[in-house]
């Protein structure tokens, strides 16, 4: 049995009886905080990832950006990365974005048990691999136009969800 626990009651947000400057200032702060608290949980990390993808695109826009023979990360590759970020389920842990010498931006998840999922959006396909244990690995590919494969989403939700359930009574 699971139990969702609210962070606070609604009552604290709607209290607006003060007339002083301090009360009005406090109300404005509370209002802003309430708006922020009601944003989707993942908006923060998605926004950070958008910026990160754009930054990588700028830093790696020229061929040879790694000092060796790396292909440039083209604006189309950055756009595809942004689309994939937008399509990610909101209740996943934020992935890392890693520039690849082959001209795209990879997604990587890892956890403290050294489970790793690496996903690479290439020109026309999504290539992915998961190492869940030394003897438990999966990999595959799918057409890029289809977005995230369901098998991969299921795997990410199982191992890299940012939702924590508490058991009633425990």
């Amino acid at each position: 049995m699971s139990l969702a626990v609210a962070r606070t009651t609604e009552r604290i947000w709607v209290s607006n009886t003060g007339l002083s400057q301090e009360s009005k200032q406090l109300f404005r702060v509370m209002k802003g905080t309430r708006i922020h608290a009601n944003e989707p949980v993942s908006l923060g990390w998605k926004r950070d990832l958008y910026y990160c993808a754009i930054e990588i695109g700028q830093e790696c826009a020229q061929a040879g950006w790694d000092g060796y023979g790396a292909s440039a990360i083209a604006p189309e590759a950055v756009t595809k990365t942004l689309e994939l970020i937008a399509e990610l389920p909101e209740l996943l842990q934020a992935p890392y974005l890693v520039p690849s010498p082959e001209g795209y931006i990879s997604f990587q998840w890892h956890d403290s048990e050294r489970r790793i999922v690496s996903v690479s959006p290439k020109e026309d396909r999504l290539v992915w691999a998961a190492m869940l244990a030394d003897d438990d690995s999966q990999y595959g590919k799918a057409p890029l136009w289809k977005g995230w494969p369901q098998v991969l989403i299921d795997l990410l939700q199982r191992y890299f969800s940012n939702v924590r359930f508490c058991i009633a009574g425990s």
Partner: protein
Amino acid sequence: MSDSALQEVDPQDRISRYLLLQKHFDARAKVVFAQAFKPPRPTEEFPIRQTSVYRTQGIDENEIWGIGAEYVTALHSKRWPVLGRADLTAKDVFDAGLLIVPNPDPHPRHADIEGWPGQEEEIEMKITYLARKALLVLKP
């Protein structure tokens, strides 16, 4: 390690991949990302996929970082400093179904990880395996 010993790779040998790019690892979580092991696409000049590594068994930390400064940073077109390294054992590489081929240019301890498969998803699997096995060592 003698010259003849450098031709043979013992499964227990330490294999180090120097890291020049901040985005190839997470220092806080002590994790190396799979892309750090990605072999470049074959070209006419280099028709075989290779990941450059060094065999660092039996030498001390100062010497390992010294090799990085002298043979990685100094030969890099942008002179990027070595930020850390990903340490594996040779067995980890062999277990991934890959080879370690001694290639004493530019240094006697230099080698290449070879034997990469042709399918991209299989390459992704092998670099992810190496990332799981890698120990991140940051440059002091």
